């Protein structure tokens, strides 16, 4: 391939550009692009880089608020986490990003480089990375590929994060047949940065040098961004060479070198070379500053011999950064890179031409106006259509199903890999490095991290219940935000902001595009109502294999802060005799529930209606109860409903599994007379707490003050006493066994 | 001049990787495998100026000082060209 390769209709199609898009490129340039320029437009106009199908709907998200320091548009969003003792304001920079397609093709490297990419997005802001979470979706546990994909992805995440010394402290993992051919790997990272030391991806100041720092460029992952924007087919398996290989050791050196460089006043801007590599970083940095840039590709450090401009510009070699330094400080930057053993070179300079000009071996190989590529990239408000079978999806006839609240159902649900303890996963992640993890993975509804810089305690949780999206994508988006906010409330934290990773199928299918918009609208509505603005995010479309699109999966990660002096609680019960309360609007529905999936194998029916006022009220009540030291444990109702939540509190009790003696909520308090629906039906806005028996009048008064229902269910029993709710009785040991070993048994085939 | 340094776990050292591979092979229906040991190969390309004897001494030292850990590993050197 050279600059002279012919631009044929096949070449245009291979680059994922439509005829109309190519005609637009010709119009903007006033000529045909050469082959290198075609590659540049191809990656910059891919769905992955340009958000061309989703951008038209971003206005549905609230992106401002008193907590927001930096909203969407940079490498990561930043929220205010308070001041230190010297009066400096600190921020938490965070973002979530998908690495779905690469992880399906090569699970270890795909997941590892996903973690590497999101860490770079955060430390490029000048933030010290201090926490990771990972939200994973796999096919059915019994699918022949699932076991090796789970093992590879988990190993890859651990391999990268552990080496970087960044604790992986939370996340989630679900299984559904819709992911059999298209798994999801959504990686989240959070870093801490002083507000006046936030770095941005900007290339201003005519004459300032452009520096390349990190690993040398090889032929890895050329056109990864285009791959992430295309439908998956059988050929994708043969695309193995496009998968990049991660080197966490180099990334660790890059992190330390960048943070050391950033302690000085040497840089104008910095950006990670992620998807679309040198092209996206250079174009986006110049675009943000309204500047131009000249680059000499002969100066780019190269790992392979004989590389041509097309490859250098589109390579997705990992662990690389592009920096713009203040003129005269290039040698200072190079010296720090040398200390850390990193490749580094001056490869260009900022101009006022508004154009990107790249030279190679004495020729100009790229010469295009920057805004023609970046700012005015195509955006589509693609056709949307409600699915014709929506009414059928929403219908669920329970009358034909016998109402049997069986203990066996509870054991079976607790042993499902979605619900069972994910200990097998998080024990492979270093979650205690940096000695700041206060609430460990799995112990509470959210992880809690101590920030050394100013003593703040941050809570974080990632959530999405994709089943709800089958019949009601709006509710799916709204529930995802509500659950994430509820989860951080259950450790006592106020929401500061959220990031999202919008995973959907092919947006060119009107029914899918309808679901995308509905889910985004639900996410935005809930984010507004719950005061949790969207500060960053990522869109992953074309999660489709053959004609099967995944369920709408708008993954959300919320970050919150505990008020000073408030100690977090866990989900496990504390002491025998403590009183158990169900707080909030309890309206369980078996529609689209985990129970339904387990017994009928489908997602029919409507989920419990979203009530954002009730969500807000119950979250603030539980925060108040934790702040006042009344609540000794808290756990929200989610997958598997009340019975599963209660069992989890009992199994995770302090000192070992404890029994419970609880009454069933009445039909009046539940909105349903069915026993199975009250036990296993799913609902928002409901939280289980335990309090000392001496504080029953206190919790009831506090709940009455704010008008939130507080339903006394019963009390915590002794260690290993029986688990009893209504007529459902089960030995606690059986529940604990299912919960603790279910994941290994169902996914890995046998207790480990 | 190129040398291949082959490093394997010593026979008395438990090799969990080798055991896992053996288990996987038997799971795939390969019945004739008695034992598996997983090691590593290091390819060294040496300066041409060195004589073969001197090169052999150097490679032996490299293997003993860094490439292999003799407490748990054995090594052999093969000359490719």
């Amino acid at each position: 391939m050279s600059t002279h390769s012919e631009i044929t209709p096949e070449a245009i199609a291979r680059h994922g550009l439509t005829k109309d898009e190519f005609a637009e490129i010709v119009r903007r340039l006033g000529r045909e692009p050469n082959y290198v320029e075609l590659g540049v437009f191809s990656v910059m106009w891919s769905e992955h880089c340009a958000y061309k199908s989703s951008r038209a709907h971003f206005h549905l998200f609230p992106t401002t608020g008193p907590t927001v320091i930096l909203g969407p548009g940079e490498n990561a969003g930043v929220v205010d986490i308070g001041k230190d003792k010297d009066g400096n304001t600190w921020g938490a920079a965070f973002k979530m990003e998908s690495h779905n397609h690469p992880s399906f093709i090569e699970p270890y490297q795909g997941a590892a480089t996903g973690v590497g990419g999101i860490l770079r997005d955060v430390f490029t802001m000048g933030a010290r990375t201090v926490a990771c979470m990972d939200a994973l979706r796999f096919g059915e546990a019994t699918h022949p590929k699932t076991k090796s994909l789970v093992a590879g992805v988990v190993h890859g995440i651990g391999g990268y994060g552990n080496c970087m010394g960044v604790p992986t402290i939370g996340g989630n993992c679900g299984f559904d047949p819709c992911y059999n051919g298209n798994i999801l790997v959504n990686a989240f990272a959070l870093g801490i940065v002083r507000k006046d030391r936030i770095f941005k991806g900007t290339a201003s100041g005519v004459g300032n040098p452009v520096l390349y720092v990190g690993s040398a460029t090889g032929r890895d992952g050329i056109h990864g961004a285009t791959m992430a924007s295309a439908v998956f087919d059988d050929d994708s398996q043969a695309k193995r060479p496009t998968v990049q290989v991660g080197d966490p050791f180099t990334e660790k050196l890059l992190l330390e070198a960048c943070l050391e460089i950033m302690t000085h006043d040497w840089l104008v801007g910095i950006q990670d070379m992620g998807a679309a590599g040198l092209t996206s970083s250079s174009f986006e940095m110049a675009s943000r500053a309204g500047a131009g840039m000249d680059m000499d590709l002969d100066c780019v450090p190269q790992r392979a011999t004989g590389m041509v401009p097309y490859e250098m510009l589109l390579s997705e070699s990992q662990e690389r950064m592009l920096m713009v330094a203040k003129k005269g400080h290039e040698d200072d930057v190079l010296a720090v890179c040398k200390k850390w053993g990193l490749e580094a070179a001056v490869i260009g300079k900022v101009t006022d031409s508004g154009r990107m000009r790249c030279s190679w071996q004495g020729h100009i190989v790229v010469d295009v106006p920057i805004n023609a590529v970046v700012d005015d990239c195509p955006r589509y408000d693609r056709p949307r259509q409600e699915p014709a079978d929506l009414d059928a999806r929403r219908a669920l006839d329970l009358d034909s199903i016998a109402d049997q609240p069986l203990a066996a159902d509870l054991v079976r649900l607790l042993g499902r890999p979605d619900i069972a303890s994910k200990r097998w996963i998080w024990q492979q992640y270093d979650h205690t490095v940096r000695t700041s993890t206060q609430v460990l993975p799995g112990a509470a509804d959210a992880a809690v991290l101590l920030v050394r810089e100013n003593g703040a305690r941050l809570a974080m949780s990632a959530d999405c219940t994709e089943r709800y999206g089958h019949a009601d994508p709006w509710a799916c988006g709204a529930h995802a935000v509500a659950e994430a906010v509820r989860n951080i409330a259950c450790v006592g934290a106020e929401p500061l902001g959220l990031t999202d990773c919008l995973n959907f199928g092919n947006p060119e299918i009107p029914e899918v595009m309808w679901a995308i918009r509905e889910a985004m609208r639900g996410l935005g509505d809930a984010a507004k109502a719950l005061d949790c603005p969207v500060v960053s995010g990522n869109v992953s479309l074309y999660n489709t294999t053959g004609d099967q699109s995944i369920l709408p999966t708008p993954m959300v990660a919320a970050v919150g802060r505990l008020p000073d002096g408030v100690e977090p609680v866990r989900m496990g019960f504390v002491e025998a005799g403590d009183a158990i309360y169900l707080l909030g609007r309890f309206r369980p529905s078996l529609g689209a529930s985990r129970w339904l999936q387990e017994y009928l194998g489908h997602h029919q029916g409507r989920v419990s209606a979203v009530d954002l006022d009730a969500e807000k009220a119950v979250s603030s009540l539980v925060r108040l109860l934790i702040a006042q030291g009344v609540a000794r444990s808290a756990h929200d109702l989610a997958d598997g409903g009340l019975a599963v939540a209660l069992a989890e509190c009992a199994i995770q009790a302090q000192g070992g599994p404890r029994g419970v003696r609880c009454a069933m909520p009445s039909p009046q308090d539940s909105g349903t007379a069915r026993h199975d629906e009250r036990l296993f039906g799913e609902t928002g806005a409901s939280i289980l707490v335990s309090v000392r028996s001496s504080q029953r009048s206190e919790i009831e008064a506090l709940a009455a003050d704010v008008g939130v229902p507080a339903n006394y269910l019963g009390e915590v029993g002794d260690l290993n006493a029986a688990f009893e709710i209504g007529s459902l009785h089960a030995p606690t040991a059986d529940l604990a066994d299912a919960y603790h070993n279910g994941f290994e048994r169902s996914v890995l085939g046998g207790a480990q | 001049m190129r040398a291949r340094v082959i490093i394997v776990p010593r026979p008395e050292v438990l090799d969990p990787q080798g055991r896992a591979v053996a288990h996987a092979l038997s799971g795939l229906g390969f019945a004739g495998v008695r034992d598996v040991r997983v090691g590593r190969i290091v390819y060294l390309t040496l300066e041409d100026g060195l004589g073969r004897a001197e090169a052999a001494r150097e490679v032996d030292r490299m293997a003993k000082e860094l490439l292999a850990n003799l407490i748990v590993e054995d090594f052999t050197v093969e000359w490719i060209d």
Partner: protein
Amino acid sequence: MRVAVLQFPGSNCDDDCMQAFGRVLGCEASLVWHGETSLPAGTDLVVLPGGFSYGDYLRCGAIAAHSPVMSATKRFAERGGTVFGICNGFQVLTEARLLPGALLRNAGLAFVCKDVALRVESQHSDLTARVAPGSQLVMPIAHMEGNYFADAATLDAMEARGQIVLRYVDRATGEPAQTANPNGACRNIAGVANERGNVIGMMPHPERAVEDVLGGTDGLALLAALVAQVSARAA
């Protein structure tokens, strides 16, 4: 009391060690870059932190063991100075032959991060000299290669001299049990010392258990005992 925390490219518990020895224990702690050919004047204790030195490529700790600062550390140990390696630091010390044995891939072939219970086995080391034998301590492990190996004759000799200083034990019984062994280590060994007792390595992370709010203080007890022992000798 001056503590030198060595920093290799890829170390990632260096900051945790600085916090534990500096902020929590009040020592004068400083980071020493791997390229240094000497230790800071007046160093009383050298700490090798955990992490993935040089990416743990080739073998864990193998490349770090040959770095310039390790030559200085060897001379320091020969003069009787106290050297303490945690996790990757332990691996570096075995690769540098300052401690007997080697650390192999975990028997389960996976990285393991969890709390473990340890029992102090001997007072024959600067780390354990001031801790009652039989004491049980709980702290996290986080490693992929913590499976301690030495041949039987070496292990017997080490046992006889009290060089086995820490073992993984069952929390309930306090005894070394197969089920309490997280990585397949020979004889449940979690930490060892050299013959002289001044070089010690352990896989678990005491520096991650120094505050009640963050996972207990059993690690602090151990590190405080080490600091007390080294200070007493320096005085």
